[in-house]
Each structure stands twice: as C-alpha cells, then as structure tokens.
C-alpha cells in the first residue's frame, strides 16, 4: 500500500502515517515542519510545503502526483484560529481557509488529473465534529470544515465510477497539540485522558477507509453527538451546554 498524508508530522497525521508504515505500507508525508518531517525517518518520502501558499499548489500537486499512484490519500493538514470573530486577524482567518479548504481541493484536482489515486483506493478528508455540533469562536474554521465535507460529498458519486472511495472523517477533540490549543471552551479543560488518543483514531480511520465511502465519526461519544445533532440540533446543543460546557466550567 502506498499512502499520501498531509499534515503528517504531528497529531492525527503522524499517527496515520505510523499506522500505514506499521502495516508495511510506503508513505509520502507532507508537512510544513521540516525538522519534524526529518524525524519521521529515512524510509518516509518527506515533502516539505506550506499549504498557505496557494500559488504553489498546482506545482505541489504535480509533484505529489508523480510520486503516486496512491492506494490511500488523507487530506489531514489543518490549522485553526480561535477567539471572538472580530478579534482574529483577517490574515489568520485567510490562512485557515487556505490550508483547510483551498489546499485539499486544489491537491485533489491535481491528483485526479494525474490519475494518482488507484482504482480500489480511498480519498479521505479530515473534517471536524464542528460540522455537527456548535463551535463558537472559530467561525472561519467551521467554514473550512463544512466546506471540505461538502466537497467530499460532491465527489463521492463521480469518483465511485472510477472505483475510488471518498470518506469524510469528523473527529472530536483528540489528544493532540491542535486540540490543546483550540478546543472549545469547556472541552479544552477536559482531562487529557478523556480525549481520544490519535493512534486509536488513526486505526479506526484506516479501517473505515479500507471498507467504505461516506462519513465516519471516530469514537462512540462523538459519534452519538453527531447522530443526535443531525436528528435534533437544538437538543444536541443543549446537551453540550448542560453536560459538557457547564460541567467543565464548574457552573453546573
């Protein structure tokens, strides 16, 4: 198995890469952090790139296409900018949209032009549980994660004709640096051991990607919240507030 993973030097991306290598797969790892990429070891094909550089995406996509074809592609790289909407510099919000939405769409376009995803392979997009449950103070992040989920859903049928599975993953807060910095108020104070470990999430994601297209929420708790949010959005928000935010903020 040959896999391409973006944002592969840390967090969920790194855990996904390790799981691929542990199964004997070969890995193309993309990240902006060269030092951490180097630490992944020599058997990994490392590509250092800054996904905020939209003008470089076509060239990068061509490069990645030539390194393929892949049985698994995971568009995992993501950044966040949290706080009151007016207080977050617009340049930072622009970067969130560039990395989380523009880049995965443009790289997908390039990989498909190069026929770099094998028939029988899977194209995985990492969205966020905030697709389903309220996440205040991260409007541009929520925009990017909604957008990429809708993009993935739009590709499902056309790519099924090429025998390519398209899976969208909606992780809740993981035990990673990203969640440590950006989890919603309340969830951020959740004890670290309550969050899902990235290697557990990675194994679940790989298992789902090998089987099916569609949507996948790793973990029983986040999965239940997502289902509830779709059936009864008001109730889900109330439960989040009642049982998670207030409890963790010590106001309940």
């Amino acid at each position: 198995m040959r896999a391409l993973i973006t944002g592969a030097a840390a967090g969920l991306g790194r855990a996904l890469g390790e799981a691929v290598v542990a199964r004997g797969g070969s890995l193309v790892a993309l990240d902006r952090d060269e030092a951490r990429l180097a630490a992944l070891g020599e058997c990994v094909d490392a590509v250092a790139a800054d996904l905020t550089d939209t003008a470089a995406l076509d060239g990068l996509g061509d490069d990645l296409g030539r390194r393929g074809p892949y049985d698994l592609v995971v568009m995992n790289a993501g950044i966040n900018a949290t706080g009151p909407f007016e207080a977050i510099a617009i340049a930072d919000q622009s970067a969130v949209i560039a990395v989380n939405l523009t880049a995965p769409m443009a790289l997908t376009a390039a990989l498909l032009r190069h026929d770099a995803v094998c028939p029988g392979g899977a194209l995985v997009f990492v969205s966020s549980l905030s697709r389903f449950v309220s996440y205040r103070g991260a409007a541009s992040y929520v925009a990017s994660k909604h957008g990429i989920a809708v993009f993935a859903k739009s590709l499902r049928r056309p790519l099924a004709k090429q025998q390519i599975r398209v899976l969208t993953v909606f992780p809740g807060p993981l035990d990673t640096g990203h969640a440590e910095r950006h989890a919603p108020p309340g969830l951020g104070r959740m004890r670290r051991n309550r969050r899902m470990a990235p290697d557990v999430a990675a194994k679940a994601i790989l298992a789902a990607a090998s089987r099916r297209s569609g949507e996948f929420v790793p973990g029983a708790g986040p999965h239940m919240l997502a289902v509830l949010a779709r059936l009864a959005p008001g109730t889900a928000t109330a439960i989040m507030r009642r049982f998670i935010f207030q409890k963790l903020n010590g106001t309940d």
Partner: protein
Amino acid sequence: MTSPFGQKRVIVTGASSGIGLALARRLDAQGADLMAIGRRAAADLPPDFPQIGKKVAYQSLDISAGDAGPRLAAMIAARGWDSLDLIIHDAGTGHYRPVAAEDAASIAAVIATNCFGPIAITHALAPHLAKAGGAAVFVGSAAHKGASGFPVYAATKGALAGFARALRSEWQGRIGVQILHPGPTQTAMHDRAGHDPGRLRALFLSADDAAAVMLRQIAAGRSPQKTGHAALWRMRGAQMLAGTK
C-alpha cells in the same frame, strides 16, 4: 404598510445582475438608503439600472480582492455612514465542471468571491453593524449540501453555511446573522457557470420573486432558510390573507 427597510442603510453585493439587482430594485422601492456593490464598472451596468431611484449609489468593487473589506469601509465613510443596518452578501460565482478540470487559481477565485470575500467584508464592517444592531445576510445555495456537478461551488456555499451558523451563535443578541439558500433561479449564473439546465429552467424562480421572498425572510430573521417555491407560495398565501396584494 411601512417597509422594515425604509430609511435603513443597506449594502447589497452582486447588485449588477440577477438576484442582487432584483434585491437592489426592491429595497430602493421600499425607501432603503442603499449602496449597491458590483464587480462591473458603473458604465457597464444594464441599461435599465439608472431607473432605480436617485438614492441608489452604485459602487464598483471586486469583493474577491484582498483589500475589499477596508475599501468598502472607506466607501461607507465617504457616504457619511457611521453605522450599517444590513449587508446582503449576494455576489457569487461558480463553474459546472468536474474537479479534475479545476486548478488552484480557479478554486481560489471561487473561494474568494463566494466564501472568503463575505467573511472578510463582514469582519471589516462588524463595528458598523454592531453600532446599528444590524444584520449580515449570507446567500448560500440549494447546493450547499453537495452537488456532484459543481463540487467547488457547493463547497464554498457549504462553507458559508457553516460560517453563518457559527457566527450567528457567537453574535446572538448583538448582530443578526442569517443564511438564505435560494434554489435554482432565472439568472445568468447558470450560463456563466457553463451549465445548461434545459427545460428545467421553466421551473426556476424568477430573480424578482426570489428577491421578494428573501426580503421577507430577512425581515423575519430566521436562519437557515430555503428560498424556493414553497417559501414563495407561503408568502403569496400570507399576502392574500392580509389583502396586501
């Protein structure tokens, strides 16, 4: 019946054609203090554009440009406005084609117009909206849940829906935030996008009907809302019962 938009300071983007133009006409007729924004130069406006009342100020502005927010803020200052009651982000663009036919520049351009432009403009005008206790209205699309023929367009409208939901929660009680999802409408959008809807076009809402329904939905303030035939019939029914039309 007095209009909820009378004397209100209102900006409409995408006002040089389609639903945006219909919105501008209706808002002007209802006595709004209107600033109509479009990408076209004023000289390239449709010939009947000047028939809109004298108060309409048309300003040419490419909302996908990086400095669109500050430039619009400057236009507001030049108009002598210190606050803003309503902005309707109607400008939109897209292409009917498979994703492999896209490149980074075309994807970035659609994101800039449909998604990041409205975000950046809302960011720049937040103080004006806060001062008036005003509202930001985003125009999504029936495609916001996914559309295999328009994957990038659908993604930008889905992004806008997520943005509006998060910001509505954040600004609750301070500034209104709404997203309206029009179904297919008789505008030049489909031709420009390279999509021929064929006979289905006869089923599309007219731009003017869509604008009428949207203004009613904006006055009611609920979000998200579908702007389609069902909403049009509800509006006509209510108007018949009230004897206003």
